């Protein structure tokens, strides 16, 4: 039990190191004078001019050597201090908590909705491969996967918000606001997770142990619950775990469409404005989340499938 934990801790440290160095190096190699970008990011195009830029350059101590700046970032990191955003001059931790928090809320809601839609349908289709439901689901899944996310989003907005007025179209702040963007993401996810579930179901039900369960006289439902469900769940959990990470960073399109504050949007702006602390902080937190999530998937899969714990 110790080894996997050590492994994950080592991975986390590695991720922190690499994220720090890589984002720092990339940011420094971006073209254009950083002071201009920061001044522009802070004051916008109506106020920014050469005088404002000089003032910003002075206050930021941008002439400090790059190696020193990187070292001091790692130093602050050891004290769990992510620094202050160059643009808003607010602590990076607070900004990430607000914006990444919003993305995570959205991604988790989407994941939950997709679990309710995708896998149950997939399992039903997988129990009778080649049947009507299986074929219909395959066609639906391949169609939905080929539709860009924002097209699904727009269709939902027009259908549910404008024509029927059931849900708020976009915005952030009330509980209802999360439904449409989450549903948009969930539909895309369910299109894939239903196929994963279907394939897993086919594999399990055609396996020897499952057939044996049938021959030894278990009723179909009993056999499915006792021998099928657990085995089907493993690939689904693995798939969803990986997807959650992609989801958190991949929601930028949906965020823009639904006016949902989120980390994708924040990243685009931070890079434009050369907000180095914000970018490093975000990359670090997201990298660590990935490690944590993989550890979580390991634990859940181990719980579902005791054979994995042994190996």
């Amino acid at each position: 039990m110790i080894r996997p934990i050590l492994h994950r801790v080592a991975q986390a440290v590695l991720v922190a190191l690499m994220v720090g160095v890589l984002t720092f190096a990339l940011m420094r190699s971006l073209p254009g004078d950083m002071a201009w970008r920061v001044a522009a990011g802070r004051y916008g195009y109506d106020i920014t001019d050469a005088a404002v830029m000089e003032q910003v350059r002075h206050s930021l101590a941008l002439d400090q050597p790059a190696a020193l700046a990187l070292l001091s970032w790692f130093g602050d990191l050891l004290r769990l201090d992510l620094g202050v955003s160059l643009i808003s001059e607010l602590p990076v931790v607070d900004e990430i908590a607000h914006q990444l928090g919003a993305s995570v809320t959205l991604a988790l809601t989407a994941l939950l909705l997709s679990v309710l839609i995708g896998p149950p349908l997939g399992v039903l289709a997988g129990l009778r491969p080649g049947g009507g439901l299986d074929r219909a689901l395959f066609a639906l899944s391949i169609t939905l996967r080929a539709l860009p996310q924002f097209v699904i989003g727009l269709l939902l907005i027009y259908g549910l918000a404008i024509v029927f007025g059931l849900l708020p179209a976009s915005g952030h702040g009330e509980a209802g606001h999360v439904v449409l963007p989450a549903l948009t993401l969930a539909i895309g996810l369910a299109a894939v997770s239903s196929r994963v579930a279907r394939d897993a179901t086919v594999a399990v039900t055609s396996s020897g142990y499952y057939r044996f369960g049938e021959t030894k006289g278990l009723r179909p439902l009993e056999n499915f619950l006792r021998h099928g469900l657990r085995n089907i769940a493993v690939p689904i959990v693995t798939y969803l775990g990986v997807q959650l990470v992609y989801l958190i960073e991949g929601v930028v399109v949906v965020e823009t469409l639904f006016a949902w504050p989120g980390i994708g949007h924040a990243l685009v702006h931070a890079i434009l404005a050369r907000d180095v602390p914000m970018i490093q902080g975000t990359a670090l937190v997201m990298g660590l989340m990935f490690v944590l999530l993989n550890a979580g998937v390991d634990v859940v899969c181990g719980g579902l499938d005791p054979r994995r714990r042994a190996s």
Partner: protein
Amino acid sequence: MIRPSRGQWAGVALLLLLALFALGVPQLIPGDPTRQSLSNALLPPGGPFPLGTDAFGRDMVLRLAAAIRLSLGIALLTTALAGVIGVALGVLAGACGGWVDRALCGVADTLLALPGLLLVLLLVAIAPGQFWPLYLGVSLVLWVEYFRMTRAAALRIAASPAVEASRLLGFGPVYRFRRHYWPELAPITLTVGAFGSATSVMSVAALGFVNVGVRPPTPELGQMMIELMPYYNEAPLILAQPILVVFLLVLALNLIAGGKTQ
């Protein structure tokens, strides 16, 4: 090799049709896809403009053809780049095992942990308006999938008696790769490649949607959608075109992948 299914044939046919359209249009219809004519804005399909015009009076048929060439070009290049790197390293890791395997897996894991979006955004910011950051960024995200699939297969193959026998008989690594690894890896590579291309088409369109990546007036499918979106009520048939093209492209690639899941 496994015989292609009907779905896969359909996918290949669809993709060929799209490519034919993209390459054939400039031969048949002369003109510049960025040429504006504000007095001809948003003309419906038909007449002098077979597929109508966009809000700046640019010919949609030329723009769509150029955009497909761009999307397919990026998809092919990134998939090829990611495929070569991913397969090579995957075989290396699987066949060598030991510390080589551990080191490569470590690199792949850490790269996976880096937010892909951040990577692409940073690269694009280094050289705004150019294509190479897009190729590199998308490839960097895609190669890991190749690596993991090939490595898993290579591990299995390396342990097989046939490879053992080849090695004992003194056959070199090139022979072993061609004789034992590639026949098994080829279908996997094809599947991952088709998925990867689909991902690439979608990613570039999504980046265009948030105004990152290809710069206007270069025709790009995501950007065309976002430019035309305000006119959904006035010119729905024009807006539908880039959406339909992305749909068909991704559909074709998914069909080629055999409708399997990743």
